[in-house]
């Protein structure tokens, strides 16, 4: 098993070298723990894919392996190279220990674009599980590879893949703060905002087109909504005092925010265009970090009304809060799983800050990280992984952990501190 892991890491390293020509700028991923058992899958190189530059099958394979649910098999050079149109020699693939197989091909089109075709096979049942043909330009290789990986993942696990989703995070380089957007694998990063003042708490709108965040560019925290399509920024909350902790309502129409305009830090509801302000909490405590439940019925939040910061919830229309966390003296940053069954949050465990999961049905609490300065957990939209910020060797890095705690990954940048991750929604 150890030898296998070592081989897998060496293989992944090679893949990353091939696919990350700008390694200085982008996040690279290291798998630091893997779940078991992982399904062995063979992704045979697609004849013709060399014309696309970035290796499309390498990206599919890396995506699947990163999930911790698959083990990519080495495929020796085959002659003739099989495609989705070839008859499948199941016995031969079985002999290579593959449970699943992806075959495909790439062809240049007369209009300068390319066509990628692929098919997925269940080698054990000796059956085709379907396939798709995509037309793409060279710029769309990564996006296409992620779509293929999503198809394979969904067919084999029964749940939607998140390889085509995007993540947002903040990088601090010297005295500059950059709000960046990248593919879920950390590649293809783009900068949405650069500032000399801090940026915190990015939150994706449910349609994935906008980010709400807090910027300190006016020497105090102000909440903005930023359109990723055209870069237009709107001030949502710039009241006297501090304005922070934006959270979208599931319909994307409203934001819950924390304001100090009436003294202290209290939670308010405001329309996404900054109109119609309404106060939701009424305490002498710090009430902050609001999050809507997926059904829009509840707002979970952090409050120290009981003497220590703990997580509470209240009806989204306002109303009497109920305490949710009881173990420990510091429980903050509530994040609900997409199915609403689990609450992730940060707990202080002696002097360590770690990610805890609370099963809301049986009240079981489990700490799922072994790092000690964790912040800002963020569920993947399929609920399978949690992205978080932590500190390794004095530097801010992103890390991801599966919601069963078994698979762990680290995403690090060669220069700069990375923090404040937010995993974006499924894009239809």
């Amino acid at each position: 098993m150890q030898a296998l892991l070592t081989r897998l890491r060496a293989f992944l390293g090679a893949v990353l070298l091939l696919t990350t020509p700008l390694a200085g700028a982008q996040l690279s991923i290291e798998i630091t723990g893997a779940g078991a058992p992982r399904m062995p899958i063979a992704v045979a190189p697609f004849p013709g894919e060399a014309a696309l530059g970035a290796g499309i099958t390498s990206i599919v394979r890396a995506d699947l392996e990163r999930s911790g649910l698959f083990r990519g098999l080495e495929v020796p050079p085959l002659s003739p190279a099989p495609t989705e149109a070839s008859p499948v020699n199941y016995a031969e693939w079985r002999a290579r220990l593959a449970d699943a197989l992806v075959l495909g091909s790439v062809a240049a089109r007369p209009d300068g674009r390319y066509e990628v075709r692929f098919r997925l096979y269940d080698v054990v049942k000796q059956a085709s599980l379907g396939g798709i043909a995509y037309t793409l330009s060279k710029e769309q290789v990564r996006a296409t590879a992620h779509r293929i990986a999503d198809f394979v993942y969904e067919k084999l696990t029964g749940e939607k893949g998140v390889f085509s989703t995007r993540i947002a995070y903040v990088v601090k380089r010297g005295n500059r703060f950059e709000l960046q957007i990248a593919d879920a694998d950390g590649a293809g990063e783009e900068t949405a905002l650069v500032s000399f003042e801090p940026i915190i708490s990015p939150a994706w709108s449910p349609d994935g087109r906008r980010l709400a965040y807090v910027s300190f560019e006016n020497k105090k925290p102000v909440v903005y909504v930023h359109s990723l399509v055209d870069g237009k920024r709107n001030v949502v909350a710039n009241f006297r005092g501090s304005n922070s902790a934006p959270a979208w309502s599931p319909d994307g129409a409203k934001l819950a925010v924390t304001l100090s305009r009436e003294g202290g830090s209290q939670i308010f509801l405001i329309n996404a265009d900054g109109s119609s302000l309404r106060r939701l909490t009424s305490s002498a405590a710090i009430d902050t970090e609001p999050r809507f439940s997926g059904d829009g019925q509840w707002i979970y939040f952090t409050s120290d009304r009981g003497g220590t910061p703990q997580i509470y919830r209240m009806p989204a229309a306002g109303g009497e809060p109920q305490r949710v966390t009881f173990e420990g003296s510091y429980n903050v940053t509530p994040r609900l799983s997409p199915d609403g069954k689990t609450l992730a949050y940060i707990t202080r465990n002696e002097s360590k800050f770690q990610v805890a999961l609370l099963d809301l049905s049986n009240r079981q609490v489990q700490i799922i990280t072994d790092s000690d300065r964790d912040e800002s957990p963020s569920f993947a939209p399929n609920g399978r992984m949690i992205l978080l910020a932590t500190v390794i060797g004095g530097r801010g890095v992103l890390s991801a952990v599966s919601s069963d705690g078994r698979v762990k990954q680290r995403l690090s940048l060669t220069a700069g501190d990375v923090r404040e991750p937010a995993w974006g929604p499924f894009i239809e």
Partner: protein
Amino acid sequence: MRLIIIATLAAAAVAAGCATTSEEQPPARVEERAAKPPAPVETKPVARVDLTSKPAAGSPLKDPNNILSRRSIYYDYDKFDIRDEFRPLVEAHAKYLRENPGAKMLIQGNADERGSREYNVGLGQRRSDSVKRALTILGAKENQIESVSLGEEKPVCAEHAEDCWAKNRRGDMLYGGEY
């Protein structure tokens, strides 16, 4: 230019002084002097320009010898009450705000890096609110002061140790034009 003029005037004054103290003048008669009251001696003061002491414009807010030039209040871990040692500072700023009703102040509260960034915005706010409350109790007007929080985002000290954290648990008082 101004310096040259002053230097010229000073030289002239020295020359005039020499002329009037000449010993060759005959002594004045005492009786005459007593009968006629002397004209008041006009000693026009020389305008002094001193370039060796930096703070200009005479603002007490910038004078390092004035308590008003101090702007930071430090806090204990997870606390927001103003320690006794900072009472005189808060009182001095309250007096300044009282005497200068046009003055505006921004108080930025800060927290150390441990824990949630947003909860730390809340802790910093609690600190700036406590300074604002103390200032208004001492007579400053509510609308002169805005209290905000920078959370853990603007540390003055970057080490991950208590020495540094203590410097970062801080409230800063800034006047209009300083931020």
